[in-house]
Structures are given as C-alpha cells and as structure tokens.
C-alpha cells in the first residue's frame, strides 16, 4: 500500500507525455492510414490520462466527465475517418497516405 501511494500525479503526466509523443511520431512517420488513425487514438488516450490524473489530483469529477466527452469525440472521429478510408480505398485501391492526392491539380 505504501508503494502505491508514491505514484504521484507527475508519474501519470510523464506516462501521458510518452504516449502523446509515440502518437505524434506515428502520425508523422507512418504511411498506412489505419495506423495513422490508431496513432491519433493514442494521442487522445494520453489526453484522457492527463484529464483523469488531474481530476484525481484536485478531487473533482469534472476531469472524468470531460474525458468521457473526449472518448465520444474519438469514437466519432474513428467512424468518420474509417468511412473516408473505405471510400478512398474503393477509388484508388491503396491506403497509403503519400498517394492521397485526389485534390491535387
């Protein structure tokens, strides 16, 4: 129990920062659109972790409520993103970000 108490808010923040960085690297460097979307989920999860950690720190529930809103947004974003991905794959037969140039003249 004593060891549990020593996990302070800073530890959660460091973990959230690490997750956020992993998500940023994934978004910037991968070529597969599905994995880019999954990296965005990682970023949103890092934000959620920070929100819940701060909600625990200040003893309120507002952070948890807000993290639920973030989860809702993540679900909507995943649905729309994957729908776009399917439409794109039907047109171009690829899911490579480098070849998404339909609007290029």
């Amino acid at each position, binding site marked *: 129990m004593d060891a549990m*108490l020593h996990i*302070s*808010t800073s530890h*959660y*923040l*460091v*973990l959230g*920062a*690490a*997750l*956020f*960085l*992993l*998500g*940023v*690297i*994934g978004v*910037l*460097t*991968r*070529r*597969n659109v*599905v*994995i880019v*979307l*999954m*990296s965005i989920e*990682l970023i949103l*999860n890092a934000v*959620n*972790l920070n929100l*819940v*950690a701060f*909600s*625990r*720190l200040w*003893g309120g*529930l507002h952070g*948890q*409520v807000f993290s*639920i*809103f973030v*989860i*809702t*947004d*993540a*679900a*909507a974003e*995943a*649905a*729309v993103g*994957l*729908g776009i*991905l*399917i*439409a794109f*794959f039907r047109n171009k037969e690829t*899911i*490579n*970000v480098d070849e998404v140039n339909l609007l290029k003249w």
Partner: protein
Amino acid sequence: MTIGGVLVITRKNAVHSALALIITLLAQAALYLMLYAPFVAGVQIILYAGGIMVLFLFVIMLVSIERTVKERQFNKQWLVGIIAAGTLGGLFITVYTKGKDIFPDPALAAVEMQNTQNVGNLLYSQYMFAFEIASLLLLVAIIGAVVMAKKRI
C-alpha cells in the same frame, strides 16, 4: 503500456498494431481504476477496446493487407517526425523537471463509493448542454460514416 504504444507505431502488419493498441487501452483502463475512476475505466473497455477496435479490425480486413505489408512502411518525413517529437519531448522534460514540486500528492481521502452516480449527476446537470452537443456530434458522425462508406448514394 508504453511497450504496447511502441508496438502500435512500429509493427508492419496493421493487425498486429491493432492488437498492441488493444493491450495499451486495457492497461490504461487499469490505470483509471488506480485513479479511482471506475466509470471511465468501464467506458474505456467497452467503447475503446470493444467498439472502436472492432471497427478498426473490420476496416483492416476490408482493405487488403497482403500488399501493404510488403511496401515501405515509413514515409520520407521520418526526419521531421523525429525532430518534432524531440522538440516536444524536450519541452515536456523541461516542464516536468522544473515543475515537479508543483503537483502535490492527491487527496487521499474522498474515495467515494458512487462514482458512476456522481459522474451521471454532473453529466446531466452541469454539462447538460455539452452532453446534447455530443449526442448531436455522434448523430452527424453516423450519417457521415454511412454516406462515406456507401457505394452509391
């Protein structure tokens, strides 16, 4: 959890990435439990690990994976990515080393027993408007996803 996150962005096969992401999400649900947020943990497991990841796996299997595995996985922006991540990481490290004492230990009391009830009360009273907007957003997302994925409107 961090290992799961690393696996998400490094695996060649998208299915492996998705499975690693599920592990990450479950580990994060455990962290929510440690932070006395059981409702958020449940929502995380049901919505993320149950709903969104099934969606991801469906799409991965809809689009062909055999060809994409053989292709080059990382684009030419890896240098930009590393630089951006390094800058951001340096920023985080500075903030944490400088501000480590800012955050006091969390209040040890107040382990309330009706977390779900309290969250619901807050959601339906103070955050009523935001809640309705979120439901509207979900409706728009449903319509958008159906329109996007439909073959012929």
